[in-house]
Each structure stands twice: as structure tokens, then as C-alpha cells.
């Protein structure tokens, strides 16, 4: 049985600089994987390599046993972004629909089956109450739910989520993390979620992939989320504590340390 995704001795070079190299990584179907690391380390680049948006300079990468490429309906993508422009006048439901047939040329007849599929997936993420409102008017948490639906609607078996919890308040971070965990486990969807704050997702993840210093090690949360490892990876003092209920909590100066003017 082949892994959901696999990197073999992979490297990416951008603007003449090696972002990361020697990456060997395998993720099984249905795993919820957190991608952590300081700003500018190459987390977004890792997802883009999996989407075929950024070419490898060395090695190989495959998704569900096939070479990667654009337009793969098996893979849903939620890019790192600022919020939608408040003036963007298109309904949430239209945005989800674009995830289904937005790449198709030409005219199409109205399709009840497609409408049903869109409604179903919007229901799954809990966005039904505001599906007819303009996307720009929605709150950050509501927008993330709509975008999740958009990423899932084509029947994706893998989700690449680039900092979906960014700019959300704590309650929403918690709620969206739980929702993603639920989708991952109930639908058997493999999830790669990039985050720079570990705490809100710690209770939900199966594995941690670390992008730092040009390398991409990975491990179980208990192995990676330790004071020593995190301090080394972030290059800043970080402390991992165990709360009385057994949960891990990360504290310290691990907020984005950027070595570049604009590392997004």
C-alpha cells in the first residue's frame, strides 16, 4: 500500500537559495499532520511542492502514488492569505461552487447534483446559515469554514491548509481545529495543517512535521514537542509544560523569528 504522500531526498531552490533539502517524508492516509516552524522556513513551500506549484530542484514527490501536478481534484488547498477584501461581492456558496467546477471552460447547464453536493459540504462545515452572504462580509472564522468547504467539495482526499487558524480568536481556533479533526477522522481525509502557534492544535494532531534550518524532520507530538527540540528548532528559548490534565502547553519566545524582510 502506498503512502498518501511521499517526499524522497527532495529539495527546493527559490531565487538561488535552497529552502530545504534532503527531505524524506511519508504520511499515511487519514493522518492529521501539523507542519510547524519559524516564519520563512519553507512551510508554505512544502505545501506548494505537493501541489505542483513549486518544482523540486532535487528528489521526488508523489501524492497518492502519482507525481504531483496542478488541477488534482484529490487535493484541496487553502492558501496562506490575508482576509478577503471586505468589498468582494460574491456569495460564500459561489466560492464553494468554484471549488467544484471553477476550472472548467465554457457554459454549463444548471445541475441539481452539483447544487446538492455544494449544499452537503457547506452543511458539513457548518456554514449553511451564512452561505448566501457576500464572502467579504463574513468574519474570519466564517471565511475559514467556507474555504474548507471549497477545498473539500471536489471530493478531496487530502487537505493542504496553510495557516488556517491565523488571525482567528482562541474560540475559533479551537472550533476550526476540532472541525478539521472531525473531517479527517470521519471522512478519512489526510490533513497537512501549517501553523505557527502549536497550542490550539496540539490536542488534535497525529504527527508533527518540522520545517527549520533547511531540514524537515518529523515525529510524534510527544517526541517533537519537547523543550530541547523546540528550543533548537526555533533558535529561541521555548519551554514545554505538561498541564494537570496531561495536555502539553508550549510557552516562550517562539513567535515568528523572520530572517527575511517579508517571509510569507
Amino acid at each position: 500500500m502506498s503512502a498518501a504522500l511521499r517526499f524522497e531526498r527532495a529539495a527546493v531552490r527559490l531565487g538561488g537559495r535552497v529552502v530545504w533539502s534532503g527531505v524524506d517524508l511519508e504520511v499515511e492516509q487519514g493522518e492529521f499532520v501539523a507542519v510547524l516552524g519559524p516564519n520563512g522556513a519553507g512551510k508554505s513551500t512544502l505545501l506548494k511542492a505537493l501541489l505542483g506549484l513549486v518544482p523540486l530542484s532535487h528528489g521526488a514527490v508523489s501524492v497518492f502514488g502519482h507525481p504531483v501536478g496542478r488541477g488534482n481534484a484529490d487535493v484541496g488547498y487553502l492558501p496562506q492569505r490575508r482576509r478577503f477584501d471586505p468589498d468582494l461581492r460574491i456569495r460564500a456558496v459561489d466560492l464553494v461552487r468554484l471549488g467544484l467546477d471553477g476550472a472548467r471552460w465554457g457554459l454549463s447547464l444548471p445541475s441539481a447534483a452539483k447544487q446538492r453536493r455544494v449544499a452537503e459540504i457547506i452543511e458539513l462545515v457548518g456554514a449553511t446559515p451564512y452561505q448566501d452572504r457576500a464572502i467579504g462580509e463574513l468574519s474570519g472564522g466564517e471565511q475559514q469554514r467556507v474555504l474548507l468547504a471549497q477545498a473539500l467539495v471536489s471530493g478531496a482526499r487530502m487537505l493542504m491548509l496553510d495557516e488556517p487558524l491565523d488571525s482567528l480568536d482562541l474560540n475559533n481556533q479551537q472550533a476550526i481545529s476540532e472541525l478539521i479533526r472531525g473531517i479527517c477522522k470521519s471522512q478519512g481525509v489526510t490533513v497537512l495543517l501549517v501553523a505557527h502557534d502549536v497550542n490550539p492544535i496540539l490536542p488534535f494532531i497525529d504527527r508533527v512535521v518540522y520545517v527549520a534550518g533547511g531540514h524537515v524532520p518529523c515525529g510524534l507530538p510527544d517526541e517533537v514537542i519537547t523543550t530541547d527540540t523546540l528550543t533548537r528548532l526555533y533558535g529561541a528559548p521555548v519551554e514545554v509544560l505538561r498541564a494537570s490534565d496531561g495536555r502539553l502547553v508550549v510557552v516562550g519566545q517562539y513567535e515568528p523569528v523572520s530572517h527575511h524582510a517579508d517571509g510569507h
Partner: protein
Amino acid sequence: MFGGLLQFHFMQNAYLAGTLVALLAGAAGYFVVLRGQTFAAHMLSQVGFPGAAAAVLAHVSPVLGLIAFCVAAALGIGWIGRGLEPGHRAESAAVGSILAFSLGLGLLFFRLYAGSAQAMYAFLFGSILGIADRDVLVTLAVAVAALIVLAWVGRPLVFASVDPDVAEARGVPVRLLSVGFLVVMALSVAITVQIVGTLLIFALLVAPGAAALQLTPRPLLGLGLSVALALVFTWLGLALAYFSDFPVGFFITTLAFGAYLAVRGLKAVRAWA
């Protein structure tokens, strides 16, 4: 009273060309506003001015000069702005540079042009008098071709406009579409200039789309509304100009501005109530 409206050949031509213009400007305008490219539309229209003047100097249909200059400018912006999001600041800078150059050219052609100032005036502010049979034919060909292209690329174009990163990952050729749409915009501008002139292009290429997007966030309905508004502005504007002897550009811009104000007012009242 309206019986006399179409009794002269020049008015028949104005209505024929005006209807085609409104169909394309309304449809393209919806995307212009959705993509936040109103400045590019403005710039393309100004580039049209020297194009039309050059065509008159060369004794060919001014629409052909408009098309040549506008499309060249569109490809220019597309080339300079490659790799940038639509409406990006660097694109604005590129657009601004081309704009200044084209106005300089326009000045030169204006100086070289020995005929009456009436034709130049028409290019700047529009006219109901100046549309010849050959212009109607060119307008028909351009409008039909551009509308077919828009219908074909409409859905991926909406995707690329509202969500370029995801669209690209899903296999939409975002950059190619961006240049392609600039060319469609250039064609729309080129034929629209005949009716409202280069300085008043916003009235047909931006105002209907802007009003429609304020009225509804539904893409198909918005597109339809934008076309309907452009048609109403044009038909009414031409009729008012014919019966009053005041310039058509004044009436169409006034109708467009009035409609936009009404829509904003309606929204404000709704939000307040």
C-alpha cells in the same frame, strides 16, 4: 414622439453600435469591477485617443485605430504586470507610465491633424453623429467575438479573479487569463469610445458593473444586471441626445452616475433600517 427617433440613418447606426457596445461593456464591466481593474480600464480608454486620431490621419475606420492602440497597451500592461495580482500597485505604476506616453502621442497627432476639431471632440466625449456603416460592422465583429470569448472563459475568470491562488492550484491558467481579459477589456474600450468618448468611458464600462455588484452578490444575476443597466443608459442617453441637442456623453454619464448614487443610497437606507 419616439417614432422619429430612428428615421435618420446616423441614428440607426448609433443605436446598432450602441446596443452592441452596451452588451459588451456591461458584461466586461462586471469583471472589471470584480477584479478591481477600473484604473486599467480608464488608462486603456485614454490610449484609445491617439489610436483614433492616428486612424483618422491614415484614412481608416477610427475603431481600427482604437483597437490597435488599446490591444497593444493591454499587452503592454500584461507584460509589465506579469506575475502580479490584478489591481496590484506595481501594475498601477506600469499603467500610469503607458498612460502618460499615450497622452503625449495624442497631443502630437492632434497637432498633425488638419481637419475639423469636431472629430477630435467626438473621440474625447462621444457623439451620436460620427458612426459610419464600416464602424458598425467592425463593432459587430468585435462585440460578437469578445462576448463569445467571455462566455467561454467566464467561470475560470471569476475563479481567478476572486481566489487566484486556489484557482492556480486547481489548474486555471491565471496569468494567461489575466492577459486575455486585458485584451477583452481593450476591445470593449475600443468600441465603447465611439459612443461616450475616451474621457467618459467609466459611464458604460465601470458604472453598470459597480452598481450591479452593489445590488447583488450573485454572479449570474450581477452580470445580467450590469448588461441591462448598460443597455438602458445607452438607449435612453441616445434618445435624450437626439431630442435635446445636448451631447450624448452628458446624458449617459448622468444616467450612470444617478443609478450608482441610487444604488448606494438604497444600500445605506437598507443598512440603516
